[in-house]
């Protein structure tokens, strides 16, 4: 484990309920800024950590609306910018332009979602010790804490059933 992250305790769990307990215990002890690694998204853990729903969905909404507006604006403006009649149809035929607007809604919506994902993940990035096993089959908890309090945390984690607890300088 390279440095570049605050020192603290890293614990690995085999079992989801154990990890959840540990999280509760940590929260009870007033720890907030710990990091939980899971190989898969897990409701139990998420609940234990207790995040609010991600704001990414707002991005999707705004992106979609923007796309829709852009779609109609683009088509209509371009039609009237140089009016050419085809098949006796109105220069600005809204109905066919719905298709364009729809596609842009999707396109912008998806784009915005990705941006949102990247943006928020970046803003809430957690620097901490990490171990490869956490993407395989183990749950990891990293608690950054100053040296003097480590023994207590170490004890807590061990007791909650960690298969391994490691002090990270």
């Amino acid at each position, binding site marked *: 484990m390279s440095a570049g992250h605050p020192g603290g305790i890293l614990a690995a769990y085999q079992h989801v309920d154990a990890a959840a307990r540990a999280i509760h215990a940590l929260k009870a002890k007033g720890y907030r800024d710990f990091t939980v690694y899971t190989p898969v998204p897990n409701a139990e853990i998420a609940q234990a950590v207790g995040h609010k729903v991600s704001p990414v969905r707002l991005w999707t909404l705004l992106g979609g609306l923007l796309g829709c507006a852009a779609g109609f604006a683009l088509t209509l403006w371009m039609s009237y910018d140089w*009016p*050419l*009649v*085809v*098949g*006796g*149809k*109105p220069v*600005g035929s809204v109905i066919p332009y719905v298709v364009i607007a729809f596609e842009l809604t999707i396109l912008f919506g998806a784009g915005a979602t990705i941006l949102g994902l990247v943006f928020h993940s970046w803003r809430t990035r957690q620097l901490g010790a990490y171990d490869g096993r956490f993407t395989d089959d183990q749950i990891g908890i990293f608690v950054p804490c100053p040296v003097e309090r480590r023994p207590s945390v170490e004890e807590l984690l061990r007791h909650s059933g960690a298969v391994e607890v490691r002090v990270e300088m």
Partner: protein
Amino acid sequence: MANGSDGELNGSGMNRRRFLTVLGAAGGGAAALSGCSGEATDKLIPYLVPPDNQIPGIATWYASTCRECPAGCGVHARVREGRVVKVEGNPESPVNQGRLCARGQASLQGLYNPDRVRGPMVKNAGGAFEPISWDDAIARITERLEGVTGDLIRFVTGNEAGTFDRLVTEWLAALGSPAPVVYEPFGYEALRFAGQQVFGTDRLPRYDFGAARYVLSFGADFLETWLSPVEQARGFSESHGFRDGSMGRYVHVEPRMSMTGMSADEWIAPRPGSEALLALAMAHVIVNERLVPRQSDTFRVQQLLDAHAPADVADRTGVPVETIERLAREFVAEPSLAVAGGVGAQHEQAHVTAAAVNVLNYIAGNVGRTVSYGADLNPAGSSSYADLGSLVRAMRNGGVGVLFIHGANPAHAAPAGTDFAGAMAQVGFSVSFARFWDETAVHADLVLPDHDPLEQWNDFEPRAGVYALQQPVMRPVFDTRQTGDVLLTVAQQVGGRLGARLTAATYKDYLQQAWGRLQRRLRDFRPFETFWTEALQHGGVWRDAPVRTVRLARSVAELQEPATWSAPQDGFTLIAYPSPALYDGRGANRPWLQELPDPVTKMTWSTWVEVHPETAAEQGIHEGDILEVTTPVGTVEAPAYLYPGLRRDVLAMPLGQGHTAFGRYAEGRGANVYAVLSTDVTEFGGVSHYAAASLRHTGRHEYVAKTEGKSRQMGRGIAQAVTLAALQHGEHGEPHGGHAAPVPEHIEELLDEVQEAQDADTKHGDYAGDVPRWALAVDLSKCTGCSACVTACHSENNIPTVGPELVRRGREMAWIRIERYFEGGEHGEPLEARHLPMMCQQCGRAPCEPVCPVYAAYQTPDGLNGQIYNRCVGTRYCSNNCPYKVRVFNWFDHQEENDPAFAFPDPLHWLLNPDVTVRAKGVMEKCTFCVQRIRGKQNEAMLAGRELQDGEILTACQQTCPSDALVFGDLNDPTSRVHQVSRDERSYHVLGDLNTQPGVTYLRKVRNVGVEEA
């Protein structure tokens, strides 16, 4: 005037390609459509001397005369920067009155033909041709002439009624040689013989189709090649085209329904060769029933007629008695005209047919009314095939020392047995003045290419009283020299009597002398210059020839029982008919004509055998099966075409193909049907175009190069017709499929509201205000299917020809096509053929437009379907969505020299119209009502500060239409002609139920049937 065009660039020694770049640059360019404009790289070459009345970018028009066939129509040549880019009919010419046929339109491709003889050539010891200087060439002629006695000098010319003919005659006379043999394959010997026999004159009268309300043709294809087709077509459409409630009637009598026959209201297919009997029987009825006042000299034929009561001839002709009697009555009911002697009907007994028809006309009192002697047609000036035969015999047994050939190609256009080429080998020295490497020229010892008619000074007398002038409308394309000049130079060098007789320095002088004499003869006492200039401006001088009355001659008594043609047992009668496009074959080196779909079969680039579908079914023959047609004199092979317009015991093949020389476009295409025609000279001195034939299926097969998909309209009412009777009873339409279901009232209103709302949102920018709506009206009762419009369109719009291979794949590029649909012809109903010119319909609600992603197809403010070639990306969606299928796509690059589809080999690209973009590979193109002409006229009007006049803008197709079936103009202008015509009771829109709101309105064909006789 003429010096105008040859003034510039004199001696500038520029090669042609350079010359073209000048034109391209100066003229704004018919350059290929390429992506970018880019750096200036082209050279601009100025004129040294400003050519008179030529302004760069403005076309100059010169009057001249078309020499593609002996009809001698007047033409106007459109010259841009010193090159001819279009020929159109000369409105002042009494012959064609401004119209032109496909062959006339294609004369440009004769001028710019890449296979012209590019300079004097001599055959060397090895039998190969090598260039020679004009002086040497002429020197050789002189020495040869000095080497032989006059009687050994012979001259063969084409039909050259006029000064050149006179020159040749004088020239020969001065040498003490026999008169020239004037060889025209279509010499109408039968007509002349019959004239001699019946009226005592071998002149050909003028037939006035315009005055005849009832036309009866015994195999005369008077809308195709016969005598003066354009003039006749115009007259015919005047009398036969439906106008305010009435029209003429036309009955066609021939075993095969020719293109002309397709315009008939009734087609009678008698036993081959029995037409004479029919005519005589009709005369019999007329005389015996005293249907008309009896002529004083009818007694001369009384005996003959008595022998031909309808009952006697009924079964020999295969025409029932009542039909004959009906025809007879109809014939005298109105001013009528019977014609005969078409090449396609020229069997051994053709002279009898012609004579019988003369008698019929005479009895009915048509002579002097619709048949007028006096204004005789020039083809009479020709010699007969018999004369050619005797010449060939003379050549064979060394009777000819020096042979000159000009404007004739007997080595191809004569029965193969004649073997003119072979005979040439026996001639000491033969000189050809051919413009092309034709079959005769390649056997000559010396080839001295003549100028193209558009490059030369000359005149022509299509008929008595009409003196048509030719002037050089541009400087010669190649190192050619006018034959007249050559003869005169020779005369000077030979000297002696010849030199003394022919003193004119140049042929132009000689011509002017002749016209000086003409001026005196015409009692015109103005200064010659005035007379001459005026003649040049108008294209000649026209006078009415005095009418000559004729009576039945004694010799008519000799008119004897025609021996009916009899086809061999279970064999066929082969009819070799003239090709409307290629004529006798002289058109075969013009790609436009090769690719012009035959009006009857829609075949291109080939020869075919027409077989009746039922006969074919019996023999297990399908379209495209290669058949072997054998006659007593030979065999030809050609693919089968199943044609219901034939008697079952008849086969038909077009003349004109099967060239063994004559350039890249003609060589090795199809078969030469002359190979199976007998060399026996008929009684009237011509060739019989009938032959007893047997049929064999070779088992081979090919996809025929035809432009047609289906020949029946599947009840879709594309080409609609109505009978005169129905019209008179107030029924205008014919029931056909695809009628839209009636819409409820309130829905109707709703739709209208929506429609208006939509229209309101189209009135932006240029679309606002009152704009014209360019439109075309097509009168199907006038269209004969002659296809002149198709070639005119090719010429005007730089449309490339693609060749047979691509035609087979439906990739021909024509913007206008003549659709030919058959009706009936099965289980006993009479066969009917309909022609429908199909070009872009310029829809008001065009399906092609909205689907184009880049606005390359769109609606112009003046109601055209614009097609912007340089914007086109080539998705071809527009064509998929076009119900009329009038859009053509550039599959290949027709301008690129090393492309297999290269269509403009130097100097053929000279005929490109600088006002029209040449389309590039991968681009969709189509008819735009000659938008370049519309804009041109609009500019003119704007400069002159005046309004456009109705009828001022002529589309190329309309301009050339011999039968005046097309009317173009502004539909939004209630006073315009097109507006009125489009509201005719017969008008309809093709596939109108699709609500495409076309700008092209069709007027139903009217068939004069079922009307109780007046």
